[in-house]
C-alpha cells in the first residue's frame, strides 16, 4: 500500500474547518477501487484519497488489459491485423476495423466500391448504437437503476444478433477487409434489421422515459463533473464527450469519410459538458444512427463488396482452386500479405467514443513497420483526476461511465 499512497493534500482544508479551529487530527483515507470492482467495467484500478467522501486526489491505474496491440501488429500481415483491432473497443468492433482499413487504403490509394462503403457504414452505425446503449444502460446501473440497464442489454443483444448474421460473430466481428468487406448482406436481412431498429427504438424510448426525466437521475447527473469547452479541447477530448462540452466536432462532418457526406444526419451538441449532457449526446446519437441506417438501406445499390484487385483482396474460391493465377494471388496474400507502398499515413474516423486514429508506417513489405493508435477514450480517462477533484465518491462511478472507458482501447 505504501507505494500507492498519495500523500496528504495541501490544497483545500477539510470541509467546515475554520482557520482558528483546533483541527481534528484527521487523515485522508486511501481507497482502492478495483482492479476488480463493480464500477470499473473493464479492469482498471482507481486509487482515491478521500476526505470524508470527497475525492481529494485520485490516480488512474490502467494497464491490466495491456496486450501490446501496437507491437503485435508488426509481426503479422496487414490483413491479419483486423482481428487485433476487434479487441480495441470490443463493444463496437467494426468501427475499429473500418478505421484501420481506411488507413491502409489511404496508403494504397485504393477506391472502395460504393456498396462496400455503405456496408461499412451500416455495420459501424449498428455498432455505434450498441456502444451507446451499453454506456446509457451502464449509467442506469451505476446509479442503481438496474431495470434501465437490462432494457439496454436487451436492445443491444438484438443488434448483436443482426450483426452475428452479418459478420458471423457477436462481439469480435472482423468484418472489414482491406479493399472492401468480408461478405454481403444475407437474404431478408434488411427487413429483419428494420424490425430490430424499431424494437431498439422502442426500448431506447423506454429508457428515455425511465431516466431522462427522472428527478433523481437529473439531480445525480446535472452539474456533475463539468468540463468546459476550453478544457475539453485542451485535454484532447473527442466524440460525444467533446460535443457535450459544446464543441461541434464530429469527424463524420468535419472530414467526411466513406459515404457520410451523402447521408443526412445531425450532430447533437451540448452546452454544459456535465454527465447529463454526455448522457443526452448518446441518446441523441442513437437516434441519428438509426436515421443513417434507414437512409443506407434506401440508398444502397447492388454491386461489388470489394475491389476486384487480387493484390489486395483474396480471390474467390473457384478461382483459387481452378486457376494458377488464383492460387498464386491467394498464396501471396496469405504468406506475404498485402504489399502496401512504403510511406506513412495518419487516418482518423469517428468511433463511438471519439476520434479513432491510426498512424501507419509501411516499409513496402507485407507487414506493418509501425502502428500507432490514438485511442478515443484515453484523453478522457487521463483527465479524470482533474475533472473529479473534490467531487464526491458517489459521482466518480457515473462519471467513469460517461467517459466510457473501454479497457481494450485505452490500454491497447
Amino acid at each position, binding site marked *: 500500500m505504501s507505494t500507492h499512497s498519495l500523500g496528504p493534500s495541501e490544497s483545500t482544508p477539510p470541509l467546515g474547518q475554520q482557520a482558528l479551529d483546533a483541527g481534528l487530527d484527521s487523515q485522508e483515507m486511501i481507497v482502492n477501487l478495483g482492479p476488480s470492482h463493480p464500477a470499473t467495467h473493464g479492469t482498471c484500478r482507481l486509487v482515491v484519497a478521500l476526505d470524508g467522501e470527497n475525492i481529494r486526489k485520485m490516480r488512474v491505474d490502467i494497464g491490466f488489459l495491456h496486450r501490446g496491440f501496437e507491437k503485435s501488429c508488426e509481426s503479422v500481415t496487414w490483413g491479419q491485423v483486423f482481428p487485433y483491432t476487434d479487441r480495441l473497443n470490443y463493444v463496437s468492433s467494426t468501427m475499429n476495423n473500418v478505421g484501420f482499413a481506411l488507413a491502409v487504403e489511404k496508403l494504397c490509394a485504393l477506391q472502395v466500391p460504393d456498396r462496400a462503403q455503405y456496408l461499412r457504414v451500416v455495420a459501424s452505425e449498428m455498432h455505434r448504437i450498441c456502444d451507446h446503449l451499453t454506456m446509457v444502460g451502464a449509467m442506469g446501473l451505476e446509479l442503481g437503476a438496474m431495470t434501465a440497464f437490462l432494457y439496454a442489454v436487451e436492445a443491444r443483444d438484438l443488434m448483436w444478433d443482426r450483426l452475428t448474421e452479418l459478420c458471423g460473430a457477436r462481439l469480435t466481428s472482423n468484418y472489414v477487409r482491406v479493399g472492401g468487406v468480408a461478405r454481403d448482406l444475407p437474404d431478408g436481412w434488411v427487413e429483419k434489421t428494420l424490425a430490430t431498429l424499431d424494437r431498439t427504438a422502442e426500448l431506447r424510448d423506454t429508457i428515455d422515459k425511465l431516466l431522462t*426525466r427522472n428527478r433523481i437521475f437529473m439531480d445525480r447527473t446535472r452539474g456533475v463533473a463539468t468540463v468546459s469547452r476550453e478544457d475539453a479541447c485542451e485535454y484532447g477530448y473527442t466524440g460525444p464527450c467533446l460535443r457535450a462540452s459544446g464543441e461541434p466536432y464530429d469527424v463524420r462532418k*468535419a472530414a467526411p469519410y466513406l459515404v457520410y457526406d451523402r447521408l443526412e444526419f445531425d450532430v447533437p*451538441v451540448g452546452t454544459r459538458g456535465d454527465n447529463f449532457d454526455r448522457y443526452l449526446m448518446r441518446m441523441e446519437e442513437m437516434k441519428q444512427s438509426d436515421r443513417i441506417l434507414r437512409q443506407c438501406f434506401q440508398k444502397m445499390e447492388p454491386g461489388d463488396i470489394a475491389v476486384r484487385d487480387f493484390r489486395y483482396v483474396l480471390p474467390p474460391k473457384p478461382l483459387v482452386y481452378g486457376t494458377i493465377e488464383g492460387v498464386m494471388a491467394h498464396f501471396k496474400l496469405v504468406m506475404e500479405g498485402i504489399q502496401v507502398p512504403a510511406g506513412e499515413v495518419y487516418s482518423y474516423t469517428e468511433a463511438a467514443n471519439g476520434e479513432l486514429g491510426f498512424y501507419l508506417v509501411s516499409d513496402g513489405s507485407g507487414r506493418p513497420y509501425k502502428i500507432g493508435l490514438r485511442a478515443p477514450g484515453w484523453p478522457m480517462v487521463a483527465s479524470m483526476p482533474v475533472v473529479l477533484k473534490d467531487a464526491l*465518491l458517489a459521482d466518480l462511478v457515473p462519471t467513469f461511465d460517461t467517459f466510457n472507458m473501454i479497457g481494450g482501447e485505452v490500454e491497447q
Partner: protein
Amino acid sequence: MRRLVGMIVFLVVFPLVLVGFGYAAYAVAGLAASAFLSWGLQPAYGTALANVVFLMLVFVMLTATGLTIGERKWSALMQNRIGPNRIRPFGNPLAGLPYILADGLKTLTKENIQPSARSKFLYEMAPVISLAPAFALFAVIPVGPRVAVSGQQVALQVASPDAGLLYLFAIASLAVYGTSIAGWASNNKLAILGGVRASSQMISYEVSLGLSLVGAMMAYGTLRLEEMSVAQGKLLWGVLPQLGFILQPVGLVLFFASAFAETKRAPFDLPEGESEIVGYFVEYPGMKFAMMMLAEFIEVVVLAGVTVAVFLGGWHPIVFEGWLKANLSPLAFAAVCAGAFMLKTIALAWLQLVIRWTLPRFRFDQIQKLCWKMMLPFALANVFLTGALVLADPTLEWLAIVGIVEIVALVALTAAATKAPEPAHGEHGHGGAHAAPAHGH
C-alpha cells in the same frame, strides 16, 4: 391464457388463504389463552405467545423470505426476463419457490470467511443487532381486531403498550446500530463508508419518520395502533371512513419515503451502493450476510404493516365491511379483517419492490437535503395544520376536507410534472442540448 387463469385463481385464492390463516391464528390464540388460564397463568400471556409464533415467526418470516423470491421474480417481470427457474423439483420451476430452500442451504453451508483484522465480538454481533429490532417492531402492530374466542378476548397483536408508536420509534432507531457496527467491525474501508452513510441517513430520517406520524397521533388522539385502527372504521358524514390517508395524505407520503430510507432500499440504498462501495456487509459471508439481507426484507414487511395500520385503514376490509359484519359470525369477521390487513401489507411490500426496481439511487448530500430541507419543513407544517384543524373541529370533518384537497393537489402536481417540457430546455440553462446540425467545421 394459462398465465391469465393462474393470475385470476391467485387473486381469489390468495386472499382466502390469508383469511384462513387469520382464522387459524385466532383459534390458536384462543386455545393458548384458555390453556394458560387452566394452568393458572394470565391468559393474555398465552395470546401473546401464540401471536409471537403465528404473526412474527410465521407471517413476517414467510412474507420476508417470500419477498426474497418475489423480488427476483417481479424484477424479472419488469425487465423482460424469466427470473429464477433453474431448480425444477418435478420438472417445474414452481415460480422460483424452491430457491428459498436452495438459498437457505447455500448460505448456511458457505465458507465462514472471517477478516483477520475484524473486531471479533462486534463483527459477530452485527447481524443479530440488525435482525432483532426489525422483528421486535412487529410486536405492536394490530393484525386483527379484539374478538371472543372460546370465552377469551383475543386480539392479533403481540403487545399493546401505552407508548404504541413511541415504542416503534425507539426500536426502529436501534436498527442503525446493526448497520454501522457491521461497517465498523469488519475493518474494511468500503464497509466503513457504508456504515457511516447508513448512520447519517437513518438518524436523519428518523426525524421525519417521527414527525410524519405526529399528525395521525393528534387526529386519532392516541398513540396505540389498535385504537388508531378502530378509529379508522368510523364514518365521516355517514359515508366516508376516516382513513389515515384521507386525513393525513402528506403524512402518508412523508412516512412512506422516510420508511424507505429506514429500510435502506433503493432509491435510498446508499449504505449498500453496490456499484460504488459494495456495501456495509461486504465482509460478511454466508448466513451472516443473509441475516442482514433478511433484516432488510423484514423491515419492508414491518414498515408496510405500520403504514397499513396508521394510514390505510388498519384491519378494516373497507369494501363490503357493513355487509360482512352483519352476515358473518364475529370470529369469521375478525378473520376476514386479519386477512385484509395481511393482504394490504403484502400489497404495500410489493409496491416497495416496484419502486426499488424503477428508481436510481440518490447521492448522500441530496438525501440529507431532501430530509432536512424538504421533508422536515413539510412534516412540521403538516403537524401545525393538523393541530389547528383538529382543535377547530374535533369531528375531523375539516381535516378530511383539507386532506382531500391535498390529495387532489398532489395528483395534479404529479400529472403536471410528467407533462412538463423537456428537461433539456429547463430551468438549469440546459438549452440546446439537442442543438441544430453542425455542418462541417
